């Protein structure tokens, strides 16, 4: 699960979009030997080839990728919490097994992504510390609570649906390890969306209170799901964001706004099929554009949640840190066991060579 919404509002613009970068680039050009390396990188990008871990790459490209992949990885593992909350209370054994598998998948996705980030020369331990210290973000969607069972349906259908929309283009990302991780993630993610839809489908064919529960979940998750695509980045909003540079680098393939529109176009007919009313009075088909028009997203709320004032920000990080700290003895024990086994093996070898 992941959105484009994790850009720190307090952070300066991407270094590569400022005059400081232009000056630095000029400076680099005047240094002997480096321009041929830069040419390699640019030539690879121009040819739509993948950049691989040990290739030369601009520092800004490396930094941008580390930040994006880390935020993506953090989103996966923080994303285990809202649904993990319902594992003990899933309404049937079937639902429980599915939910466990889904939450386990999110853990796996986190691992693929941390591995991809590590190929850029950063240690996973350090990334986790940045998450725990609040220095790196995760998708703000996970700062909303899962109040009812129907929320597990809405998350699968809307949140994972939006995540897939975001992630499919990343399968063609210019950085090889990230692209390969995304291919794997997308393949696994499609069951997540379908199981969510199925939960709502069943609720909508149940009792009146079950239908009301499904509608309530859709009401609460629709707008945060749209915000997952990140702030507007086309038209006037194109200036000053990361989108332009990320597109030039082949990290990003579509704008936030394009992906959001595609998501709305895909999801409205699904909501109709479910019999759910999406909470937007401005939602209507625009014949001329060939797209669904939709209302204004509350970006004040978005920035507020991103800054840390969402319903569950503190709880999510608190839980994450506790889980990490409480697992310390397991990691220590595994280390002690590995050290002891290695020592025994050495002893055995020494005995054998002495005999």
């Amino acid at each position: 699960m992941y959105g484009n919404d994790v850009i720190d509002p307090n952070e300066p613009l991407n270094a590569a979009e400022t005059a400081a970068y232009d000056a630095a680039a000029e400076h680099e050009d005047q240094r002997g030997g480096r321009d041929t390396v830069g040419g390699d990188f640019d030539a690879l990008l121009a040819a739509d080839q993948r950049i691989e871990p040990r290739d030369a790459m601009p520092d800004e490209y490396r930094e941008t990728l580390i930040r994006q992949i880390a935020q993506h990885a953090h989103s996966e593992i923080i994303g285990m919490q809202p649904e993990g909350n319902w594992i003990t209370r899933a309404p049937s054994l079937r639902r429980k097994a599915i939910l466990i598998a889904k939450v386990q998948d999110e853990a796996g996705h986190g691992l693929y992504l941390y591995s991809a980030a590590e190929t850029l020369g950063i240690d996973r331990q350090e990334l986790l510390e940045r998450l725990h210290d609040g220095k790196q973000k995760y998708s703000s969607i996970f700062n909303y609570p899962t109040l009812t069972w129907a929320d597990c349906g809405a998350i699968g259908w809307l949140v994972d649906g939006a995540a897939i929309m975001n992630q499919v283009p990343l399968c063609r990302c210019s950085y090889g390890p990230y692209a390969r991780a995304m291919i794997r993630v997308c393949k696994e993610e499609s069951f997540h969306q379908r199981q969510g839809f199925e939960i709502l489908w069943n609720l909508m064919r149940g009792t009146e209170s079950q239908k009301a529960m499904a509608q309530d979940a859709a009401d609460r998750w629709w707008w945060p799901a749209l915000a997952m695509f990140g702030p507007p980045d086309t038209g006037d909003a194109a200036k000053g964001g990361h989108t332009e540079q990320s597109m030039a680098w082949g990290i990003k393939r579509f704008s936030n706004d394009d992906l959001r529109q595609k998501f709305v176009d895909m999801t409205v007919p699904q909501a109709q099929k479910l019999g759910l009313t999406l909470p937007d009075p401005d939602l209507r088909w625009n014949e001329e554009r060939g797209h669904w028009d939709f209302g204004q997203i509350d970006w004040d709320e978005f920035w507020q949640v991103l800054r840390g004032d969402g319903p569950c920000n503190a709880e999510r990080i608190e839980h994450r840190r506790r889980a990490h700290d409480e697992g310390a003895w397991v990691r220590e024990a595994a280390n002690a066991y590995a050290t002891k086994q290695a020592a025994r093996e050495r002893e055995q070898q020494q005995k054998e060579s002495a005999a």
Partner: protein
Amino acid sequence: MSGATTPTTGAGAPSEPAQGERSWPLWEVFVRGKRGLSHVHVGSLHAPDAELALRNARDVYTRRQEGVSIWVVKADDVTASSPSEKDSFFDPAGDKIYRHPTFYDVPEDVEYL
């Protein structure tokens, strides 16, 4: 899924963990999808020893029966060619087009050639 045929730690110097806790070594994971295919690199993971690396690889990379056999190799034990020497390293094969069957001029009406 991470590095292709190069160890995933290959880029730059890995930074030291900021706190006291020692990071587990990195292992590269190779999976045989089915009998008759070779093992293919699928990604990497951290584990304290080979046995746990293998178990974690099973849980992470074969949750949907993607494999019938797994290799784990310590990333530090992989020796890789250097991308900066790519040209000179692979150059020797560049001018030996006579190693390809299409190099040879033969009459078109000769069968089984």
